[in-house]
């Protein structure tokens, strides 16, 4: 991992209008799927993005690839602002930044052979022709651990794990720098998940890829990532080295999330002290004032109601958390004096 930033997000917002009833166009409100995310992804690293359903992690992943339009903020890819890219420039972005989707049963065209699927990016970007193309497809299939002679087969002939390998081969066809894996192992069985996780790790090292690994599965994220970012209700609430976030989280939400992950060790499970959160995640269409987590936070205190916490350095080097327990930092600036507490 180098210190060079490949993908940089500043104040990124993705808001969706929530319409009124029926076909009336009057807007009833705004759904804040992603609501002010600052994020740097370094070249050659694997950044894990975790959060529960509805926290905006997939939308953020899509926004970084310009697959959904942003409504605010800026995203730079390798130094170029991509939020306003058009035409040929966006096509070049598509080659350099790929996506592996969640459902290997839905993300492959059932009527196209593996070779057709994997070679499509090569054709679109005019990278290889004729015999070169077939050779490249064979090379890609071998890279992801499939036999080159499966090129003529159709998706229905493969198992879920094999299909996911085809999806990865397709994503790698254009020799991308950056790969977003959105719940890429969620629909696979445990033993097959392990195969795909190992494959992604190997490819990342071998090809020097930069990976954004989006998942709700903290164990898998901890396993594959160099750094972990935790999202809650449209915001990154904690980020830092995987080891630090995984063992010494500084934000109460991360602590609760970690303590809720069931571990396959009966003795450990019995002794464990769980932080069980009450209630459900608030709707992103009605985000609480101040800290978004305060409605479920066991430690919520006075400033949490009105001060929206900013990420601040805390814990291990490189670790940041958005929580007033580490000192009240954030907007608005009407911070009460002298309010500090320790977790």
């Amino acid at each position, binding site marked *: 991992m180098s210190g060079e930033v490949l993908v940089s997000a500043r104040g990124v917002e993705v808001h969706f209008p929530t319409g009124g009833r029926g076909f009336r166009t009057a807007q009833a409100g705004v759904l804040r799927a992603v609501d002010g995310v600052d994020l740097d992804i370094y070249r050659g690293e694997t950044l894990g993005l975790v959060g*529960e*359903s509805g926290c905006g992690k997939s939308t953020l992943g899509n926004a970084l690839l310009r697959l959904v339009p942003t409504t605010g903020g800026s995203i730079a890819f390798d130094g170029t602002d991509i939020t306003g890219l058009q035409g040929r420039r966006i096509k070049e972005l598509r080659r350099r930044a790929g996506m592996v989707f969640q459902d290997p049963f839905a993300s492959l065209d059932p009527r196209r052979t593996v070779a057709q699927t994997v070679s499509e990016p090569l054709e679109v970007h005019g990278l290889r022709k004729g015999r070169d193309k077939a050779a490249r497809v064979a090379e890609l299939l071998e890279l992801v651990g499939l036999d080159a002679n499966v090129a003529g087969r159709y998706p229905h002939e493969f*198992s879920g*794990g094999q299909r996911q390998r085809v999806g990865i081969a397709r994503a790698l066809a254009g020799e991308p720098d950056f790969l977003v894996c959105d719940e890429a192992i969620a629909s696979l*069985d*445990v*033993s*097959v*998940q*392990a*195969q795909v*996780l*190992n494959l992604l*790790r190997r490819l990342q090292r071998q090809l020097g890829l930069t990976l954004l690994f989006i998942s*709700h*599965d*903290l*164990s*898998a994220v*901890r*396993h*594959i990532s160099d750094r972990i970012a935790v999202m809650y209700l449209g915001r990154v609430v904690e980020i830092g080295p*995987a*080891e630090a976030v*995984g063992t010494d989280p500084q934000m109460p939400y991360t602590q*609760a*999330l*970690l*303590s*809720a*992950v*069931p*571990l*396959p*060790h*009966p*003795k*450990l*499970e*019995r002794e464990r002290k*769980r932080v*069980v*959160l009450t209630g*459900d*995640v608030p709707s992103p269409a009605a985000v609480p004032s101040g800290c978004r987590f305060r409605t479920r936070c066991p430690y919520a205190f006075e400033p949490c109601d009105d001060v929206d916490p900013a990420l601040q350095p805390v814990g291990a080097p490189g670790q940041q958390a958005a929580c007033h327990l580490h000192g009240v930092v954030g907007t608005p600036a009407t911070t009460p004096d002298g309010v500090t507490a320790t977790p």
Partner: protein
Amino acid sequence: MSAPVLEVEDLRVRLRTPRGPADVVNGLSYSVGAGETVAVVGESGSGKSVSVLALLGLLPQGVATVTGRALLQGEDLLTMQPERLRQVRGPGAGMVFQDPMTSLNPVLTIGRQLVEGIRAHTDLDKAAARRRAADLLGEVGLPDPAGTLDRYPHELSGGMRQRVIIAIALSNSPALLIADEATTALDVTVQAQIIDLVEGLQAERGMGVVWITHDLGVVAGIADRVLVMYGGRCVEDGTVDDVLENPSHPYTRGLLGALPDLAQPAVDGVVPDLATVPGVPPAPTDLPKGCVFWPRCPVRGDARCETEQPPLAIIGSSDVALPHRAATWCTESPARAGSTAVSGTFGTGSPGTSGIESPRGRLR
């Protein structure tokens, strides 16, 4: 322990499919005591769901052939008349299904769906059944139980819906609760809430619980006893500590090794690669002869692996209430010399390097 709530003996399910007969469950035996939780673990296609659907007569007739015995409080579910079976579903056994989004009827209010079940099995009038329904919703921890009765499923979150489904399953105070991947569709924080809820209710009511899941972490937290299924067979069972801390069957070990583990410390800042089980589970229409796991097995330490089916044999001590059993030819000897010795020899004689590469390290 008193008489078991559920006793399953040699359960077999064969399904008629276009590709020929599929042997989905092949001789499953277990029992569930009052207040006991038995976890049935396995990957997709291992037969874990079908085995409980078969118990309650929920498989399509004419497609499924179910044989064996399944005594629920002494009565055989498999030979029961349909009318009697209908009476048993509810007061005898309640079931919670996986997907809270689809297992409620979207066009009926929560109250109506609860009252229906209560009135089918009691003489309560509508008003009394409604009061009972509201009590149940309170018991499963829903805020504003009376108000929730008049709401529709789409107005509730996934966690709340799963609570409603649990309330329905509990509405006739069943002796046995069957939960089929009941928390799989939920977020981890909500999953923790639901597991707490079921454990609390179980302690209160003394139900037997059959918890079907693929998540070994959930198993570690909730189960007294674990049954690992593969290819329609039980390949290993025993107490949760025996099976998870000291797995004996190569498949159980592979499954545990393949699991990314939050509790596993990094070595020099790097988390080691996961051990993998090569290949995919067998199709139930085409089960291998011999040990059901041998085509994927990295050990294959015995000549009988390919030809003869290993019986579920006791390993370790046999004079305990719940002996630890495994169906494999590959255990070194009945009395094993501790788990470290097994871990050390595990993997030798492996047919390829792509097998289970590292024995799982124990931690903390």
